[in-house]
């Protein structure tokens, strides 16, 4: 059964909300995925993204995870991928919270991937060329860990930015998702129209309660 971390304090939750705000202020150059920059420039920009302070993973583990995310949803001619979305940051933070029960699976899975890279290609996973990384990932494609990390990479790329992923809304822009709205008109539900993305998190709307976000919710057990 899924464990929920009732232990997390309200203060901690708000602190995390604050961190999200910081993560959202990444360089503006990364926020225009529709201007399809050449792949090399995209990759260079991605490499320049500073890593947020880690909350669950070790730096070595985070290197492997960053590299996996970047191959699952690559930065390419279709624009930014999981790297720019900061999916690995989402996962790291979640592993210290809602996804804490998966922490051990990550420790084992990331170590295993690195061992495979060293065994078959003589170098850690993160330093392999993308094609070699893909080959090693193919070896573990049917494992439970791969299924887990794929699901979490999708979450980190396409979730509400409140959770530390989908930075600068690059995930939502990839899908042409027009964004969280609180009112939608009849015209906005017609086929053939194009809605301008509003780049809003649910929690940019003042009416919603951040304290119950994140699935940490001890709320249901309050008096």
């Amino acid at each position: 059964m899924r464990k929920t971390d009732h232990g997390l304090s309200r203060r901690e939750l708000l602190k995390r909300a604050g961190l999200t705000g910081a993560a959202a202020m990444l360089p503006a150059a990364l926020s225009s995925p529709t201007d399809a920059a050449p792949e090399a420039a995209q990759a260079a920009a991605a490499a320049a993204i500073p890593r947020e302070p880690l909350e669950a993973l070790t730096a070595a583990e985070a290197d492997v995870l960053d590299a996996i995310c970047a191959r699952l949803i690559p930065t390419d001619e279709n624009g930014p991928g999981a790297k720019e979305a900061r999916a690995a940051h989402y996962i790291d933070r979640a592993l210290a919270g809602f996804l804490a029960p998966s922490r051990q699976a990550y420790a084992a899975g990331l170590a295993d991937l690195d061992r495979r890279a060293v065994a078959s290609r003589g170098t850690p996973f993160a330093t392999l060329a993308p094609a070699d990384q893909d080959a090693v990932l193919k070896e573990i494609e049917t494992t439970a860990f791969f299924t887990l990390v794929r699901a979490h990479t999708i979450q980190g790329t396409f979730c509400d930015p409140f959770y530390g992923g989908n930075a600068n809304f690059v995930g939502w822009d990839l899908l042409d998702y027009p964004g969280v709205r609180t009112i939608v008109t009849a015209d906005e539900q017609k086929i053939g129209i194009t809605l301008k993305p509003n780049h809003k998190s649910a929690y940019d709307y003042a009416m919603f309660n951040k304290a119950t976000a994140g699935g940490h919710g001890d709320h249901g057990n309050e008096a």
Partner: protein
Amino acid sequence: MATRLKDTDVVVIGLGAAGGVGVLPIAQAGLDIVALEAGTWLSKKDFAPDELRNNVRDWPMAVQKAQHEIPTQRVLGATLRAPSHPMMNAVGGTSLHYWAQSWRLNPWDFKVVSETTKRYGAARIPKESTVEDWPFGLDELEPFYDRVEHEIGVSGQAGNIRGAIDRRGNIFEGPRSRAFPMPPLRGTGFTEMMASAARSLGWHAFPGPAAINSRTYDGRSACMYHGFCNKGGCHVDAKNSPLVTTIPKAQKTGHLSVVTRAHVTTIEADRNGRVTGVNYLTDGVEYFQPAKVVLLATYTYENTRTLLLSKSPAFPNGLSNNHGQVGRHYFSHNQTAGVTALFPKNLNNWYGLPAQGVAIDDWADDNFDHAGLDFIGGGNLWVFSDRRPIGAASMDTFRRAPAWGSQWKAFIKENADRTNSSYLQKTTLPYADNYLDLDPTVKDPVGNPVCRINATFKENEMKLAAFIQDKMEAWYRAAGAIEIQRQPIVPIMGVTTHAYGGTRMGDNPDTNVVNRWGFSHEAPNLGILGASVMGTSGARNPTLTAQALAWRTAEHLVKNWKAIAS
């Protein structure tokens, strides 16, 4: 030793869709009610449009008491357990995050045995099925459907008002006494496209009924169509839940006292077989709430479990179970065996809600001739506008792309807004060997066994599922779908929001737990509310029927107070 609380007229266990509605006529009649609810009060500020929290992480269900009480499933020799419980503990219960589809059953659903026998012969009813006609027909329940539709606010297009057929609505529905209190929710580009495809097949498309305001109603806002109704609460209170409709009204009478965080364990009965009150825990402290009448309204699985846990000298095998019927005649909708389509253009389904859809009833119930077929019953076909980004990115790739990498990314970039999944609700019959009991080993944190589901879909359900998939595929193809994916048809009847039976209603105490009024055949001052009293499923969502029955049971209690309470 439990603290004995002050006596009350009626104690209601569970303030969800059924209990939350049932309290209103009782409070309005001036009887004092104590309502025990395991959850707490939530409000619209808690219902952020947050896909990760609501749809991926199952908040707020995941943090509830119910999560420690998930039923187990004994299936084909193995014991399984779902990762989450579809029921929710809160004032308003699961209706806080339900889709709010608010259907009446069709006339056939009340008379499956007699109508099938009349039209095709008794041999067409599967031998192992324990299905019975209801003790009354749709006409008896109609006034209660009507009352509840107006109390909670249901939007829809009538198809049959006192026998006058209106082709804009469901031509197969039974006669209703008047129109819906509100017009239907608006259509979308996608639902209009699907309705037009259905008409090209000669089928009757219509907007489904929803307990969601299509315009301002009873002081509550109209729907904003923002797209987070699916497993989320309403941020403007446009969606009904008793939390925002019947419970506040009942509180205004001064006769309803709501106790939250009350974890009910057992119902007490005396040596004469009358119930005397309810035991519950709050933060591990024991309380006993005495009452003249007990109404059990906890959800199908928990209604059976609570009765089986409540043993006494008068009821050694569990409350109201001296005929061995508690837990029997369990069934659920076969919500598997879906059909998904890929279209060659964007559908613009990013907003909207599961109740904003278009329905086909041509293949439901006995609305078509089964003479040449090898099953009875049918399915309601339903498509709707509903999409969110994590779900969209997790879409099936229809064998057109790998599961990750650049090709996958290109595929979802192109197709994220081009798929649609149908919701196909199908008749399920009760069978002698499909039942609920207590798990022999798995217990909740206070040491009580959880409910166990012993049930599979049988031949009738499996054949019907394949038939309905054919119809759904034809509908999608007519609308221009370029790929179709059918989910497998499997016999596993898992834990679900559409769970029925266990305390079936009927005149015969040898085969039913409650009488035609919803009161126990064995413990006369115990009433049971919820879909657990329903003996057939129809091919549509159960909530409105459970609510109409709850209102009827409550009204019966009020009218017969002296006889039932003493």
